[in-house]
């Protein structure tokens, strides 16, 4: 990849909006910042065999799971590793209600996985990095001077938080009261916690 190509890619980053993200990924692939093949991630990050993927690929499912584990923090990460929390499955369900976001998310996850300098300060796929290095990449995105990189962080973070805290399994580690099957029980629970009328 020539310096001119690299400069062009960087200049593009500075001015891109979200809709232009697809063009960014295309450009990055064209100039060699992204590999064209996707392959498979580590088996521990693979989707369960009984989960049909409509919107994510096995690779982007793995990237999303790895990123979500770092974003949600230790208690959530523990449950993701133990397969008690499945961010990828939750993301699939969310994308079913917002299918137009699917291609943008896939591209964002591919950039996160395969982006190399100057796009991202790493030489290996995101899923192959240790936790500390993954945090460094997420921090780089969050605090970047390029709005598009911050948007990438914001988009993946939002969906990861939605996937983790939208799962009833999260209630146990944040001490959020369970929902009740009957409204009367909900009312009783609410009044237990409310100031006296």
């Amino acid at each position: 990849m020539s310096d001119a190509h690299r400069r062009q890619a960087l200049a593009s980053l500075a001015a891109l909006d979200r809709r232009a993200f697809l063009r960014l990924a295309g450009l990055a692939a064209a100039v060699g910042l992204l590999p064209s093949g996707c392959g498979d991630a580590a088996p521990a990050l693979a989707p369960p065999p009984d989960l049909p993927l409509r919107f994510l690929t096995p690779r982007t499912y793995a990237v999303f799971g790895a990123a979500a584990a770092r974003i949600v923090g230790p208690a959530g990460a523990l449950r993701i590793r133990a397969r008690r929390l499945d961010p990828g499955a939750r993301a699939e369900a969310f994308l079913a209600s917002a299918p137009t976001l699917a291609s943008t998310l896939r591209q964002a996850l591919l950039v996160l996985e395969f982006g190399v300098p100057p796009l991202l300060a790493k030489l290996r796929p995101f899923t192959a990095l240790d936790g500390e290095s993954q945090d460094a990449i997420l921090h780089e995105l969050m605090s970047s001077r390029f709005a598009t990189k911050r948007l990438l962080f914001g988009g993946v973070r939002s969906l990861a938080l939605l996937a983790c805290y939208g799962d009833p399994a999260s209630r146990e580690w944040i001490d959020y009261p369970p929902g009740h099957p009957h409204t009367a029980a909900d009312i009783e629970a609410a009044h237990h916690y409310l100031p006296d009328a």
Partner: protein
Amino acid sequence: MTLREGPRLRADALVVGSGAGGAPAAARLAEAGFEVLVLEAGPRFSASDFLSDEALMTARLGRTGATASGAQSLYAGVCVGGSTVVNDALCWRTPPEVLERWRREHALSELTDAAFAPFVEQAWADVHAEPTLRSHLNRNAHRLELGARRLGWAGEAMPRNVRGCARLGRCNWGCPIDAKQSALVGYLPRAERSGARVLADTQVTRVRVEAGAVTGVEALRLDPASREPLGKIRIDAPLVLLAAGVLETPALLLRSGIAGDGAVGRGLQLHSSAAVTARFAEPVHGYFGPTMAYAVTQFSDVHGHAGPGFMLENTAVHPLVTAAALPGFGSEHARVMEALPHLARAVVVLRDATRGRVEADAEGRARYAYELEPGDVERLRQALRELARAYLAADAREVILPVHGLAPIQNESDLAALDAAPLDPTRIAFLYAVHLFGGAAMGGERAVSACRPDGAVWDVRGLYVTDASTLPSNTGVNPQITIFANALRIASALANRGPTS
């Protein structure tokens, strides 16, 4: 895919959308003897469908959009009853300063306080707006109130349109006991009792106009479960009222070829919002009780206040919205989330000066061009600062601002970091808007407005806009009463003329 052609229906009046702009109009027209058909893109639910599941209900009841830059989220209810099903039931009368501005800047001389007030009072009574008793406030509201009181700020409990509220804390997911007097339990049943029909799962794709007059609409019938199109229908009517909300009405006009010489789509305006979180030593349990109920009005610029133009309102502490508004990620984010029962939250309701535009892309889908201008960003910074001060005054252990990279605030001197931080929408954790205005604004001058003062689309006979798209600016307060009132005003004038068929 070729969709099956469905039946061809007809009505005296079609109302496109069943929320705050559509439901009152449907009720008014039906009670005046019109044969009314309400078309709603979303599904119809009842109280027993509203579950205690934040993620599920947020997705099921509404639609999330984003500004074109991706920096700001937009949310609106998409179900029978529209955003009134998912809002916080807050009621404010239309500020006189807003009406004065509409008269002055938009040539709406007929919108005097005296002319508009009867519709506001009608809406107020219709939806059973009532003062919120102090005894109904939860500890979340108490924390904000305490801070405001210690700082000597003006504030008040906000009226809410509820009847028999059990303080479940679930206003945003549909009220499971029908205490909230949303359009789903108020205006729409009223309309149906007078013969109106509500057709859910029906997405209007185009308004039909022939020889300068509306003749009806084309729509898709959607599968209630998959939301996939099942077939097309065509509905004829000499009167069509658009009330699909700002997320949809302007785009519907544009893809129908009704651009109003560039006026349609223009003037999009929001109340931009971001939430501040505070951790207290004692439990707050902010997920129970009215989701929003107390407002700091000190900084408002309406209803007699002369502040910079924002309100601070306590808001529910459910996991998804709380997690989204906390900055950063990982251990620090999780540390605060694990203190959920001890968290209080409040939201900035900024009266933006920014103007944007709704556009339709090549496929007719809406695009919301809206870049928060620097002056608004600075007022947002000020609002976050004041909110942090309120929580510190209320003895918060720490205040977490929704700005990536900022450490928690433990005393006022820490706020220097906020003053120094680069701040733009992409650095804010969850900048959003649920109050959207404009895109098909009414006005007295054809060249700069999409609709006439009576809500009629210029140059298209029989076509009206009755939702917040037709409001010429934001209101500085939660807008549902203003939207109800304006819809009643427009529909009343039509009702007085009688069915045109």
